[in-house]
């Protein structure tokens, strides 16, 4: 039987390309930012993700935290949590070779943000993918009305990208709003879950224009759930909310059939989904 496939050159969608680890930066006791040099330039959009292979161990999906574009190097910020990430944290050294597949997924809907305010709401390691978004927004800041960065971490020691907040805040149209979960002797800022930055009063203080905003959020599933409910509560519409949904992934290319919400595959249609598109499907927040 003759089949007319779309590609004649046999590109192997499962093959990971080599990359060299150039630098490791410790963000928190469990989170590190890794800088990789790629064997070939690649183009990625903010929000698209990569499959990272620790040779012989396996693959796991991560969204780069560095600025998107046509890049020869990229940063990925990774929390230690299992097979692949343990190996990375404990054994992989600068100069070692790992492998990468991707980019996959759609990425954030950057065009929608033109003329709007963008609330970037992160929790824990969830600020990593959002950092790529923040850089992409900085890059077209003339088209953006305002950027409100809202970030929650467990404690001051658990904050990612600490040394960058000042620079972000010094930019025009940008506000940085931080909170930690519980009071801590070294912390003079706000205390409370990240949702406290989304209270009506606080949004007013930030001068946020709810009707003219989009929200992009990334963090643990429970956080996304409470962030979403809070946003709806203070007057955002489901259409204004984009969530970086998390599902287990294996192939990253819409075949292995596990990273789904309703009819969608996060690897192809996401991983960021508009809440309006998914809200009526079962088990959205687990």
């Amino acid at each position, binding site marked *: 039987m*003759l089949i007319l496939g779309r590609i004649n050159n046999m590109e192997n969608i499962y093959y990971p390309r080599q990359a060299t680890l150039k630098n490791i930066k410790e963000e928190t006791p469990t989170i590190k930012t890794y800088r990789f040099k790629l064997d070939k330039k690649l183009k990625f959009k903010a929000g698209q993700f990569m499959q990272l292979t620790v040779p012989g161990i*396996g693959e796991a999906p991560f969204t780069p935290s560095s600025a998107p574009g046509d890049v020869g190097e990229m940063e990925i910020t990774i929390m230690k949590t299992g097979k692949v990430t343990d190996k990375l944290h404990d054994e992989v050294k600068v100069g070692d070779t790992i492998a990468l597949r991707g980019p996959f997924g759609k990425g954030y809907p950057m065009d929608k943000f033109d003329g709007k305010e963008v609330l970037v709401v992160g929790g824990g390691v969830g600020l990593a993918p959002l950092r790529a978004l923040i850089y992409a927004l900085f890059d077209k800041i003339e088209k953006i009305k305002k950027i409100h960065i809202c970030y929650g971490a467990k404690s001051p020691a658990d904050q990612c990208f600490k040394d960058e907040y000042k620079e972000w805040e010094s930019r025009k149209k940008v506000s940085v709003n931080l909170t930690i979960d519980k009071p801590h002797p070294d912390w003079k800022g706000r205390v409370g879950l990240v949702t406290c930055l989304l209270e009506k009063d606080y949004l007013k203080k930030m001068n946020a224009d709810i009707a003219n905003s989009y929200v992009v959020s990334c963090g643990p599933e429970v956080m996304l759930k409470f962030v979403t409910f809070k946003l709806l509560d203070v007057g955002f519409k489901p259409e204004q909310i984009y969530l970086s949904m998390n599902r287990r992934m294996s192939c990253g290319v819409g075949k292995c059939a596990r990273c789904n919400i309703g009819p969608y595959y996060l690897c192809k249609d996401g991983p960021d989904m508009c809440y309006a598109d998914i809200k009526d499907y*079962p088990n959205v927040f687990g």
Partner: protein
Amino acid sequence: MNIYFLDDSKLSGLMRILLGYGRVFASTEREVASNRNSQSGIFVRELTKEYLNSYRIPGFRAFDNFKSFVLPARAKVADYPDEKWIDIKKGKDKTILVGLKACDLASFAILDKVFLDDADFVDPFYKKRRESLILVSSDCTYSSDNCFCNLLGNYPYALKGFDINLSEIDGGYLIESGSSLGNKVLEGLSLPDAKENQISERDKKRKKVLEKLQKTNSEFEKAFSGPDILVSGAFDSDAGWDLGSTCVSCSACTNVCPVCYCFTLFDREGKKKEQYERYMVWDSCQFKGFSQMAGGMNPRFSKMDQFKNRYYHKFFRFFKRYNIYKCTGCGRCIDNCLGDIDMREVLSGAYAYSGKNK
């Protein structure tokens, strides 16, 4: 397309020609131990020269599905960092599958949607294997109580998707080609045209099997009239799905299913230093670990959610994405379920429940 008559005595001649193209794997009836009598005793095995003369095409689908010819249970998909490595040998060797039923052919059309017709990512391994297949199908001469292809728009005989199709009639088979390769094979046999009475005999036989199927499944027709709407509508509640409570998450259903293709990738060290291999292995949504994530979070935590996911994927998600239900109605999952679960009854249960709530 022309229909010819293949005398019984010429079947081995056909098989011999097919053997000239490559290895032949045929659905084959054989004696089985008495405790397995409930199963058909029809299995797929390699047809070698010594079995040529005794080979008969069974009238019913095999116990085995044919998906492993395009998606082996375990297959190497990368050898890194060797970018050029691609497993499949070049060359003209074909794999010939004989005795497929219409439901088996339908399964390839479904798998093609995912692995071949995807605008973004074509699976090169699937593509190569799929292109190397020669499909020789045959009509069902009987059905079982668990067959329900008719509920999914299929027939117990093939109308498309084959290279060659055979329909058993008195004294032999009606044979027709569905591709240029099929034409070539048939030319080699120089067969007489089928007579009109032979064609009407075939049509009568086909009708009889179809009518039997329709009778067997008449009580389930309603539940299959729009399973996408049904499954999505009834999903939120566990009520109506209680037949699933005997599921023991064994994954027999997904393994025997000709269109369940979920897999996982795993890596290991190769034989050489700093050489690694990646394998694709069958997985199953019936396992809890299938969608388990960090911190124990799992969007399909309960066993019932895993059970329902199989239905949701087959009749809702897949339909929404590819505009076709991911089920051929072959009934293998019913034959093999350890929990004695009948997909038709489950959907009917959900149907009855959704009816009560509207």
